[in-house]
């Protein structure tokens, strides 16, 4: 292995510092890590998954199974990085993975000796252990298996890099920047379409880049690139992978913006996720070469022939001096000739007895020894191939004559090519088998959004590649309405042989009796041998999906790009079927693995989900509030004084409200304007109680059910005008209630003249509660707030300073209280006004925890009680339901289980002892055994400063009849059992004297 003195598409004026396992590699700008490894004579690059067999660089692309490494260090460490697609950069540090203690002396390689025992499915048959009703034995074995499995080591550090997501729209998306894709982009671009061309490599050209520098393709490529660059409607994305094709003409791309640098430049992102909405798309993804199957075909030094050619021509690296090429098609002939011209000693073994003359001429002109009707039976060498056994073969690839050993430090193989059909198959269905081209191909159907072209569609000549690309490009442009003149396709150039015409279906070299000369692999990363396929067949795992899952073939990081066809071919052979009859497994996104961070973009940390903030939020933050989550909202939980904890703070705040006056930000409540001549009728239908008699200027509490008769939400609605109602919902259910209302009005009740509009964000709301609330409010407004002018459940308009507000006299706390609705932009101003004026009245802000304590004292239900499984009767709200009208849920709420008198119903509990109970505790009869689902459960608890007791709201079977009974309150997970007395849930001021005062 060596770097040639001249040639290649690398920039020899820009040497780079690149290391693998601490060893410096000779690298230049334009290299990949793999080409640098080969240039540096690194033959051992990694270890396989199961048997830890030595692995070298095998391919030159995304299908690489062996040369997977750890890249970078610290928080930018990345495992399982394919050396073959890693662009070399200055300061690149890479190390080996999945080997211990070292890559060269890996203990895990012991598995290789045990491989007959570790054959397909062995773990299903062992480790069961002698113990019944216990998984211990397996779990003990599993602990070792887990440590041995996996490939690279993941970092546990947070990623320092940034990512972004971008939406894009185009008429034509061209996937692949080789001859077909370039032609498609050119045609569509000339026609005037908006084009996005994506190429996963860092250069355009595709297979042209693997041709020798100066070959005719170069001129073609530069002409086309130049013209594309001149078209402003064509956007070219390099280092970008189209990983998935999705519904609606949408494609997911990941652009690796900075992965070719040591670290992203300041302010730059690492990767960008593109969500492309395309009018049409062209699949010009080319084809991947397949391996041949023979003993030792996984040894370092065995490579794909096309990859060897790529390293030679693009990177000026000769991957071996004594090269044995094994092929079943014409493409290897160019490789052979070019290697020979570069100074290698080349022997070409062609499984075909009678290769075409033009191919033979290419090899012979370059001095290559061609052995027709020959195959490689076995590769020899441990950590590097040293020689090979070759044999004459019959038309089935079986040895037919005397074998001989030839020296070789590189075996290059070509088992045919597979079109890259992944995106097409993700979108439509499984590809069809083309027996002539010996590969699976996509179908072309005119109505398809994604149209294949070039070698992805098994084009047989370069003329076809260019013509298909160009035509698909024009059609796609026309489909989007682009009418510009596309002109003629770029004239084809002279290219080497293609694979489709003379491909042999033989994919393995075996001994005369059909057996193999040693371990021969179909999946190089998962170590699936041909014998594993045979065993799966013996055991009846014959469908392709069983085969895949039982042997794990095709499940490695290359997802079967290399292994699938050979595994299917063997199964077809064993079952006496054709390959299409055996079928293929499903292609799933992503085409190649994508970083999670790229798809996430900005949506992580605090920005994982939107956060909704009240208009008064900043005051809470400035005044030391501790905040809590309430759905998407942040709400003040409590306002600690000095070093108060939650418990101390909420008790103080709740007591303060009952003794003085408190204020709480209730802006997060859902607010819906219900307007129109049929507004009252609408309310009558969605709420269980009646609305026809509500006078203007009054408000009423209401409860609504789901269609199935369980309680959905509750809240107060005020009548502001003849046709104008103001509905409030709980914070959690605001969106649901609005969508439900809109649904009913737009589908079932189209005749009702009502508009429902969310005004949650338009209004800030402040609840002022406590005996001094009237006095405080009087001091800032001229409205008449007297008991006579504004009794409980009445509304008035008022001014606080210059701000026009609405004052709803209503009480959740049970105190004399007001809710003040303020245009949102003035929310904080009014809050501050009230706060300042409140100092004369000993006003304190309070949070949601104190609000909870106050409502529990009053026995009001909230989220913990309206939990989706409770009925009006369960909640003690049966009295609200009107019997005079139908409403949502009025029929289904009468189903037998919902009306069972034995259902748990809302009661209060007075907890004995000092600690109080925990919500979620279960209730049991005082003397019964504590097991099963209990007689009920505790929903909300608090210490009641007003009563000086620990109290709770709870649901208890037939609860109303059990007042006075003592029950057990068991919190199993907290290890605590308490006693409690069953009481009415209206703990405090049941007559409501305070709120009506």
């Amino acid at each position, binding site marked *: 292995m060596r770097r040639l003195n001249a040639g290649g598409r690398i920039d020899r004026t820009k040497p780079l510092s690149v290391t693998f396992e601490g060893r410096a590699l000779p690298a230049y700008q334009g290299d990949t890590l793999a080409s640098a490894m080969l240039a540096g004579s690194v033959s051992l690059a990694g270890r396989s998954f199961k048997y830890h067999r030595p692995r070298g660089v095998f391919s030159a692309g995304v299908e690489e199974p062996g040369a997977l490494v750890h890249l970078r260090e610290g928080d930018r460490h990345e495992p399982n990085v394919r050396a073959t697609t890693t662009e070399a950069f200055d300061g690149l540090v890479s190390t080996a993975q999945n080997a211990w203690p070292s890559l060269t002396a890996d203990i895990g390689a012991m598995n290789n000796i045990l491989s007959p025992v570790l054959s397909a499915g062995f773990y299903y048959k062992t480790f069961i252990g002698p113990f019944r009703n216990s998984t211990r034995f397996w779990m003990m074995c599993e602990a070792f298996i887990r440590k041995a499995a996996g490939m690279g080591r993941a970092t546990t550090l947070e990623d320092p890099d940034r990512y972004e997501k971008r939406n894009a729209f185009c008429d034509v998306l061209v996937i692949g920047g080789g001859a077909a894709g370039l032609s498609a982009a050119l045609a569509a671009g000339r026609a005037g379409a908006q084009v996005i061309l994506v190429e996963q490599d860092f250069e355009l050209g595709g297979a042209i880049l693997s041709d020798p520098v100066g070959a005719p393709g170069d001129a073609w490529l530069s002409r086309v690139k130049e013209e594309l660059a001149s078209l402003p409607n064509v956007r070219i994305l390099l280092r970008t992978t189209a990983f998935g094709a999705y519904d609606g003409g949408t494609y997911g791309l990941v652009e690796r913006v900075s992965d070719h640098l040591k670290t992203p430049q300041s302010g730059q992102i690492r990767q960008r996720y593109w969500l492309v909405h395309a009018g049409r798309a062209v699949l010009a993804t080319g084809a991947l070469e397949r391996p041949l199957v023979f003993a030792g075909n996984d040894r370092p030094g065995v490579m794909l022939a096309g990859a060897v050619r790529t390293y030679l021509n693009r990177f000026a690296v000769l991957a071996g001096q004594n090269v044995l090429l094994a092929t079943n098609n014409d493409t290897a002939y160019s490789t052979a000739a070019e290697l020979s011209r570069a100074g290698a000693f080349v022997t070409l073994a062609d499984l075909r007895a009678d290769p075409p003359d033009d191919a033979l001429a290419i090899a012979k002109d370059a001095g290559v020894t061609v052995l027709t009707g020959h195959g490689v039976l076995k590769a020899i060498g441990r950590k590097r191939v040293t020689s090979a056994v070759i044999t004459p073969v019959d038309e089935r690839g079986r040895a037919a004559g005397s074998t001989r050993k030839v020296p070789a430090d590189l075996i290059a193989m070509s088992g045919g090519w597979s079109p890259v059909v992944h995106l097409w198959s993700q979108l439509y269905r499984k590809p069809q088998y083309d027996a002539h081209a010996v590969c699976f191909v996509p179908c072309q159907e005119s109505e398809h959004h994604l149209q294949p072209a070039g070698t992805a569609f098994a084009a047989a000549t370069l003329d076809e590649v260019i013509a298909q690309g160009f035509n698909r490009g024009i059609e796609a442009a026309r489909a989007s309405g682009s009418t510009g003149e596309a002109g003629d396709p770029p004239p084809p150039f002279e290219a080497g042989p293609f694979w489709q015409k003379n491909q042999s279906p033989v994919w393995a070299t075996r001994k005369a009796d059909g057996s193999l000369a040693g371990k021969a692999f179909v999946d190089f990363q998962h170590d699936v041998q041909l014998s594993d396929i045979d065993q799966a067949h013996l055991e009846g795992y014959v469908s392709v999906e069983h085969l895949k899952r039982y042997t794990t073939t095709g499940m490695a990081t290359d997802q079967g790009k290399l292994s699938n066809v050979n595994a299917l071919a063997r199964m077809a052979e064993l079952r006496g079927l054709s390959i299409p009859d055996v079928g293929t497994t499903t292609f799933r996104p992503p085409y190649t693995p994508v970083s999670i961070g790229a798809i996430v973009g900005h949506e992580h940390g605090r920005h994982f989900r939107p956060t909704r903030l009240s208009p008064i939020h900043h005051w809470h933050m400035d005044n030391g509030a501790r905040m809590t989550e309430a759905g998407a909202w942040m709400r003040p939980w409590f306002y600690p004084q000095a070093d108060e904890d939650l418990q101390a703070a909420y008790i103080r705040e709740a007591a303060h409200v009952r003794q003085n006056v408190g204020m709480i930000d209730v802006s997060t409540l859902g607010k819906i304007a219900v307007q129109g001549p049929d507004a009252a009728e609408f309310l009558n239908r969605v709420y269980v109680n009646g609305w026809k008699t509500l006078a203007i200027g009054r408000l009423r509490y209401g409860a609504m059910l789901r269609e199935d008769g369980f309680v959905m939400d509750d809240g107060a609605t005020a009548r502001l005008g003849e046709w104008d109602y103001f509905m409030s919902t709980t914070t959690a259910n605001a969106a649901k209630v609005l969508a439900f209302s809109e649904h009913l009005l737009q589908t079932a009740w189209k005749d009702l003249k009502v508009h429902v509009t969310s005004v949650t964000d338009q209004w800030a709301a402040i609840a002022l509660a406590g005996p001094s609330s009237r006095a405080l409010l009087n001091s800032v407004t001229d409205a008449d707030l007297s008991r006579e002018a504004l009794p409980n459940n009445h509304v008035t308009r008022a001014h606080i300073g210059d701000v026009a507000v609405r004052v709803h006299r209503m009480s959740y706390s049970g105190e004399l209280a007001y809710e003040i609705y303020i245009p949102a932009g003035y929310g904080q101003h009014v809050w501050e006004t009230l706060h300042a004026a409140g100092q004369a009245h000993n006003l304190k802000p309070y949070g949601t925890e104190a609000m909870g304590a106050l409502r529990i004292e009053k026995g009001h239900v909230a989220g913990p009680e309206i939990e989706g499984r409770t009925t009006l009767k369960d909640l003690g709200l049966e009295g609200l339901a009107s019997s005079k009208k139908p409403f949502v849920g009025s029929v*289904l709420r009468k189903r037998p289980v919902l009306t069972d008198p034995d259902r748990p119903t809302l009661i209060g509990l007075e907890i004995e002892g000092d600690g109080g109970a925990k919500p979620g505790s279960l209730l049991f009869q005082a003397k019964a055994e504590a097991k099963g689902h209990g007689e009920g459960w505790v929903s909300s608890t608090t210490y009641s400063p007003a009563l000086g007791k620990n109290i709770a709201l709870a649901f208890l079977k037939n609860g109303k009849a059990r007042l006075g009974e003592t029950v057990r309150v068991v919190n199993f997970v907290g290890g605590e059992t308490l006693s409690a007395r069953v009481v009415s849930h209206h703990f405090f001021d049941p007559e409501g004297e305070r709120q009506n005062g």
Partner: protein
Amino acid sequence: MIRINCPVCGLRNETEFTYGADATVNRPALDEQETGPWLDYVFNRDNPRGWHKEYWHHVQGCRQWLVLERNTLTHEIRGCRLAREAGE
């Protein structure tokens, strides 16, 4: 990404919408007192493989409920109307 051609707003991503329910089940008349029709409306579904009429809500757009004809096997859409204009 399903793309829905809202009659009010034009072609938009599915992420602006929420899926509602089967649009072939009709809500019984308000004064229907029998349990059967309500049970059928709330719980039972044809659940077809293939074309399906269904409600979607343009919740982050015009807030109109739409009736889509969408194929449950391919996700293809062949019709989209405002629910308030869709026939029974």
